[in-house]
């Protein structure tokens, strides 16, 4: 495989290979010297058309740990502001002879469009409201670390599923591995995902019962006042995760969040900072997973 544009396009075997490879890279990250020469001489361009700190930093660090040459391309200083088309931008970048293009873009399908038009490997770092595949991979990696496998787990995904590319990628991944997926949120924010073996709950207390994993999603403030929900206060009352609700899940349930969090809006501080929260471990695992993806796409190891 040349690109990673989405989880939808991956088979279960391919996902397993990435997760196993990530496991080896996690060992590397525990060493004193965390840099390996695996991709020395390769060039990566990080093409971020949307503001991002976490994902971009994670990719950049993963790229540096693999010894690649990293080029950061951020939109405010680029020719995109001068009206250049995406097609021309990527063709220009390709002319530099880059090996990887990591792209974040507000248009769903932008990575697919790029992948069709360049020879370099394209990695989707989030496109519109479509997918964020490396986030789902690191989430799966984190769950497996804690729970051993994904099969049969009750996994509740809570919040703005409609606009969340993280939720979408997670749904595609988890459904491939036989997890019981529960979508919890207001009806205005839950799309029709019936093809992916999900159960929908508008009542959060009910949806959290016996959950093994609770994935909280970030609520984007700009959705307020657009008719999706009346106020953040009402939202937190109905779909926010606090200690009382956490107790409805299994005793050893883990709490996840892709960040950045809105404390007091979708998640209370005591939950976010509790022993059940693995939010910071997710960040560490993100590095290992992104290293694995690039390593495999470069043709090293087996074909992804």
């Amino acid at each position, binding site marked *: 495989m040349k690109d990673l544009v989405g989880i939808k396009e991956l088979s279960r075997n391919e996902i397993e290979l990435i997760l196993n490879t990530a496991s080896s890279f996690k060992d590397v990250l525990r060493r004193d010297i965390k840099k390996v020469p695996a991709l020395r001489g390769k060039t990566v361009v990080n093409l971020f058309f949307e503001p991002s700190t976490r994902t971009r930093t994670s990719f950049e660090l993963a790229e540096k740990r693999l010894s690649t040459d990293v080029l950061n391309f951020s939109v405010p200083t680029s020719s995109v502001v001068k009206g250049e*088309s995406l*097609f021309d931008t990527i063709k220009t970048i390709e002319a530099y002879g880059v090996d990887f293009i990591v792209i974040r873009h507000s248009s*769903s*399908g932008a990575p697919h469009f790029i992948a069709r038009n360049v020879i370099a490997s394209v990695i989707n770092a989030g496109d519109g*409201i479509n997918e964020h595949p490396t986030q789902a991979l690191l989430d799966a990696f984190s769950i497996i670390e804690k729970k051993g496998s994904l099969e049969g787990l009750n996994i509740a995904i809570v919040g703005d599923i409609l606009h969340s590319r993280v939720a979408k990628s997670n749904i595609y991944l988890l459904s491939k591995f036989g997890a019981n997926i529960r979508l919890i949120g207001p009806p205005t924010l839950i*799309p029709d*995902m019936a093809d992916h073996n999900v159960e929908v709950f508008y009542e959060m207390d009910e949806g959290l019962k016996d959950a093994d994993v609770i994935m909280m999603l970030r609520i984007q403030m700009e959705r307020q006042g657009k008719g999706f929900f009346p106020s953040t206060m009402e939202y937190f009352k109905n779909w926010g995760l606090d200690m009382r609700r956490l107790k409805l899940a299994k005793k050893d349930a883990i709490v996840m969040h892709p960040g950045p969090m809105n404390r007091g809006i979708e998640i209370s501080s005591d939950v976010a900072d509790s022993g059940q929260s693995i939010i910071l471990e997710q960040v560490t695992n993100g590095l290992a997973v992104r290293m694995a993806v690039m390593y495999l796409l470069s043709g090293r190891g087996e074909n992804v």
Partner: protein
Amino acid sequence: MYSNMLIKNGHIIDPSQGIDGIGDILIEDGKIVRIEQKSGSLEAKKKKNNDFRTSELPNFQIIDASGLYVIPGLVDMHVHLREPGFEYKETIKTGTMAAVKGGITSVCCMPNTNPVNDNKTVTEFILRKTYAEGSCYVYPIGAITKGQKGEELAEMAMMHEAGCVAFSDDGRPVMSSLIMRRALEYSKALNVPVISHCEDISLSEGGVMNEGRLSAQMGLRGIPYASEDAMVARDIILSELTGGRLHIAHVSTEGSVRLIRQAKERGVRVTAETCPHYFTITEDEVKGYNTNAKVNPPLRTQRDVDAIKKGLKDGTIDVIATDHAPHHRDEKLQEFDKAPSGISGFETALSLSLRLVYEGILTMSQLVEKMALISARILGIDAGTLKVGFDADIAIVDINKEFKVKSENFLSKGKNTPFEGWVLKGMPVITICKGKVYDWRQNE
């Protein structure tokens, strides 16, 4: 050029006269002067020797149409010629030429040009340009409101006098029910239809494809069927209230078909059109973020396709138009949500519609009605017929000829088609328009 000709031995289909049989058509000075039927009707069988003697017709071009259908040139009541303002997408010259290649001899161009066709000066410009460079007849459609803004009525009567045959704000639907009411009322004085692109833009805002499981899965914002149905319902009610003539453009949903059917049963003055893509393909074409399948209204589901076919069969949908919407390659070579909506339709419309005949949904005669006669009647123009005395605007069609759709061969500047590579059966092989004969077989 030849304006005297004899089309011999073709299978003539002309629903305006109930003709469906083998015969000859004699044309003098670009007008139809005689039709002789040899089979297919009682009259034809009564006559014995009704062959033209070609020796008696010197200086006549003889067109042998044996094995071919001879039908009135098609009347396409929904097209975008892009001139003035967007000549990089299409011009009156290239657009009308592409239409003629598709067997279309009359087109109605929508007003979303730059400047908008919302005053008689623009109407006159289009007609002057057509006179100078057009290969087929162009009947402009004027804007309902100034600047298509939906706020105040445009000078409909003056545009009508200048040559507009209908009024529409096309892709920018009139959201104010009051303005739509006034337009339907006012248009009664002119006895012209108001054409409505039915879309509640507050429901479809930001949408780029049909709303449903596929849009959720592709992460693309959806346009729900309710956005169309709600406006169809509103406009039917307003037409009922005012008695104004309403024509619903490009029907794409099952619900619209149902609402129009019910309205017709009640006797509302409503007519409706659909386009070949709405009865041929579904939202699945969008997969892979194919911008050539991005169109507004969006491609829907198989259920909608089936309902539209049923609506065509039972007469709920009166007309097949193309909504020919050419765009530049660079505009379609973009992110899906940034690419403009539209399909270049002139050069595939008849072939795609002939599939309805092969499937047994329409007879050849019904197809000609929907693609020529009824649209001409709705617009009140002299076209869509082979009656004696009318201009000889004729398409000669080989319904057995197979070809592969190659947009690079389109005469339209717009190469944006979701049918690229399709093998279609049946195409116009000769078009006669404005006294000129175009034999498309010569170019092969």
